């Protein structure tokens, strides 16, 4: 049996026609971009939240990240999203990690920090990157607003069972190559739709060797692969990471939970519907050149000769051109993909004692208020600011453009985010997604640059 099947089976309350299941949902996380809409719709329909103690909410998506922030946001009309979410969560009895709460941060950063996600649990959020939390051996996936309402009202979701896929990274990741590069390599090779219809388990020596933060980065990108989720079997690293976290089990509950969690793995003879094997030792730092995460190549690679004209016209690169060396206007380090302490350390190791190139707007947004405090305790903030980076309060920030802050029309940005879609980061902004190391090296060079040897 696979890890996925183990969790699925233990959560199916009833079989539904056509192979679907009525699946018990253990944890629900809302955010201010869609939380008020879901809660207000629920209330308007005269329905209540079945178990508010297992629903959480946070302000992360459009909250301002400039120092000294309030409910005011640069997004036109944005304040209403915050105040309405505050009112709706209060009315429903849901815990909200509000704008200036010390536990505030990006949903997929704070949920593990607080021990809200647990191995073997089902967790859903109206956010596509919920798959990030599969790094803990949870079944975590993104949904729309209607399904969030459904889960809150009933404690369940009606869901077709996906097929299973195992992606095995064998061998050892070379120096300077990161989990972000693993994810981009997978998507570049197998397509942005490559995981459609599947729940993906990441396995293999190179995955086991990753720390929890690296595992989160890898699982985070499963949605860019069109998978329902990405997940990794929990192990001692997982348990050590969770022990003592606020909402994690304690005392006898911890012991009982741990005994259960140790059973959460795919059997050695488990059969997956699809298998992909990638030799981690062959991977290099990756950079995107186009407008889909599948448009990515190794940092010393070239724009494909057969690239679609529409995409080339948008990104303003020529077919066959090298990607490295392309001048950039801005650098962004942050997002649910790459904003954790290890990501900031990775970038700081390259930035230390150096300055970003003239004319490059450089911004670092820690993934949570806790990450920010921990980074500051290590002096990372000074490394970033001395290098010419802005050092922000935590949030999703400029991962996407909501009508407020941007890099300027048409700017070219090296970014640790997950989506290089057209205008994702602002009108006609050209986004190149990469690891924190690659973005830091590129910020220093003022052009897309190989991080290896940049330390």
């Amino acid at each position, binding site marked *: 049996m696979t890890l996925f099947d183990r969790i699925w089976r233990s959560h199916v309350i009833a079989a539904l026609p*056509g192979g679907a299941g009525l699946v018990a949902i253990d944890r629900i996380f809302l955010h201010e*971009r869609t939380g008020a809409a879901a809660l207000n719709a629920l209330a308007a329909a005269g329905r209540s939240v079945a178990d508010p*103690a*297992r629903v959480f909410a946070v302000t992360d998506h459009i909250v301002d990240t400039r120092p000294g922030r309030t409910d005011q946001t640069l997004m036109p009309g944005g304040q209403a999203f915050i105040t309405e979410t505050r009112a709706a969560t209060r009315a429903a009895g849901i815990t909200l990690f509000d704008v200036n709460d010390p536990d505030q941060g990006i949903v997929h950063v704070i949920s593990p920090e607080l021990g809200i996600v647990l191995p073997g649990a089902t967790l859903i959020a109206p956010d596509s990157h919920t798959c990030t939390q599969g790094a803990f051996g949870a079944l975590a996936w993104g*949904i729309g607003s209607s399904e969030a309402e459904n889960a809150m009202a009933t404690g369940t979701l009606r869901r077709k069972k996906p097929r299973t896929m195992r992606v095995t990274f064998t061998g050892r990741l070379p120096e300077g190559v990161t989990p972000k590069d693993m994810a981009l390599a997978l998507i570049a090779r197998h*397509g942005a739709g490559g995981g*459609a219809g599947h729940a993906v388990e990441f396995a293999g020596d190179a995955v086991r060797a990753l720390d929890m933060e690296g595992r989160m980065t890898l699982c985070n990108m499963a949605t860019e692969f069109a998978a329902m989720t990405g997940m990794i079997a929990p192990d001692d690293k997982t348990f050590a990471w969770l022990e003592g976290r606020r909402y994690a089990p304690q005392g006898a509950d911890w012991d009982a939970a741990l005994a259960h969690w140790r059973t959460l793995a795919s059997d050695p003879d488990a059969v997956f519907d699809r298998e992909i094997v990638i030799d981690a030792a062959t991977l290099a730092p990756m950079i995107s050149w186009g407008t889909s995460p599948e448009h990515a190549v190794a940092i010393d690679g070239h724009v494909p000769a057969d690239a679609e004209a529409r995409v080339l016209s948008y990104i303003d690169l020529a077919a066959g051109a090298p990607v490295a060396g392309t001048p950039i206007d801005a650098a962004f380090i942050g997002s649910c993909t790459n904003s954790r302490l290890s990501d900031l350390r990775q970038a700081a190791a390259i930035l230390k004692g150096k300055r970003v190139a003239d004319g490059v707007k450089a911004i670092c947004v820690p993934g949570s208020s806790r990450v920010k405090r921990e980074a500051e305790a290590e002096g990372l903030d000074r490394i970033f600011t001395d290098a010419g980076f802005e050092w922000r309060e935590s949030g999703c920030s400029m991962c996407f453009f909501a009508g407020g802050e941007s890099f300027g029309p048409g700017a070219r940005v090296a970014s640790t985010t997950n989506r290089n879609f*057209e205008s994702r980061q602002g009108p006609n902004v050209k986004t190149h997604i990469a690891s924190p190391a690659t973005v830091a090296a590129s910020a220093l060079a003022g052009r897309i640059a190989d991080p290896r040897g940049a330390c």
Partner: protein
Amino acid sequence: MAQPFHELQSLPLPLLRDNVDTDQIIPSREMKSTGKTGLADGLFAGWRYVGASGRDPEPAFVLNDPRYRDSHVILAGRNFGCGSSREHAVWALAEYGFRAIIAESFAPIFAGNCVRNGIVPIVLDKAAIAHIAAGEAPVTIRLDEQDVTAADGQRWTFAIDGEAKAMLREGLDAIDLTLLQSSEIADWQARDRAARPWIYLENRA
């Protein structure tokens, strides 16, 4: 409750691109309120209008082609609806009048959102989509028979799971359906509470 779907005949609007993401379908900047309505005007705003915040139609974009003014079906490439889980993308499509999307494949969250809002996500292969697009003529979509018929009589069947089909056909509300099983859910939770006490957080807030 979504409008029930049985049969639809419409000239399909060809948007033959791969990876049409939900940021294109409804840019975040067009999600201006916490409600679910008022979104059709922002549908495909980045491609449909000239300039980032303008409302002057971009004549080259297919949505502005008068031939497709009354289209209720979109024809697309692979991985349609990828990216952000925002249901606003589907609300915008539904409010504009789209009732079905025919694509080579869909992103899973988007397809789920379609079913909950009365839009049928139909997967056909590339050749079928090319054939339909080349015909520039109305197609007929029948949900009961799970088929698409081109104006020249060529017909393709499509797969859809039973639950999704029932919801689309009846315009059912998934919450109402689920609440019919309330006692089964309560029984399961009582057993689960004994087996996994650590999952329940009433005393931990």
